[in-house]
């Protein structure tokens, strides 16, 4: 039982370390958007 719990905790810790490493390297699942939305104006609808 203890071995199972220890194994699970180790897995969670390993996943957190890997995720942290990716984040430090700037590799993120959320791709960044540079810019924004604006309402279409006259010249866009010609």
């Amino acid at each position, binding site marked *: 039982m203890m071995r199972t719990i220890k194994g699970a905790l180790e897995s969670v810790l390993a996943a957190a370390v890997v995720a942290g490493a990716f984040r430090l390297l700037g590799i993120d699942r959320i*791709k960044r*958007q540079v*810019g*924004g*939305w604006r*309402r*279409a104006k006259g010249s*866009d*609808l*010609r």
Partner: protein
Amino acid sequence: MRVAVLGAGAVGARIARQLLSGTSVTQIVLRDTDADRLAQVSKSLGDRVIIEHAPFNSKLDAEVIVVATPSGTQVPAVVEAIEQRRPVISTSDSLAEMVELLKLSEQAQKNNIPVVLGAGFAPGLTCVLASHGAAWFDKVQEIHISKVGTGGPSCALVHHRALSRISYDWRHDNWVRRPGGSGRSLCWFPEPIGPQDCYRAALVSPVLLHHAFPEVSWITARVSASLRDRLTAPLPMLSPPHSEGGLGAVRVEIHGQRGTSHEVSVLGVVERPAVAAATVAALATEYAIAGKLKIRGMAGLSELVEPIDFLHGLEKRGLNVQIFEGDYEKE
């Protein structure tokens, strides 16, 4: 001009209201199977509405027929309208039903009447945006549609089922079949919706867009979904669908050649899906009344309307197009 609106739900009732607010429609025949709902809706529509509830005995006495009944129930009404040689506007967003409707294409062409398929938020507005955006390019290579949100209960049910069924994307002269709920892609919608994880699903847009743009080599459609949506998609809906969803959005991403450079344009709209669908369907109906639909036969709005004129019409009704400016990283 007398128009028949079949279905008095979240979309149908609004279509009736919008048509009555203009001058081209003098009377509306509003049909629904639910007498209580009809009574409730007719109270706010005034005396220019004739309500009819099931069982429907008489033939439809109207010049244009709008079919806004739940997806999956529209084929008989469209068949009847084509037989009566009446222009039809269908709001269906079900892929299976769209395939059935397209089988009537030859009949519609033979009877020389326009049949508008998928006159709603997505498909519908997305088709017009794609048509408008495509005009900015010398050659369009890719069109990617994504959608967030649902309208009435029928729309919520279609969304639920679509995530567990096979999706069809058009890629390099072939329909590519993939399981619904796969292919996560982060899509940025106009504010306040923002970024949403979107997935493949059994959606209609690629079918209609491929019909309109046969030369485009890659056409996809995705829908926003939560983890719970995807996990429960193969099951019946665990709780009854909401009467109407909240704010939604559509996004149309177009890749192509402009001169010698490869460019991307992204257009979007934020609105409650049922409101936007009704606005699009009502305007398409007015086009049918005015004889402004470009072809006789069955097609989506990409082929049937002049996009700039249509978008101006939508703008007057409060549906505003947004354009993305900047760079983004495609996932």
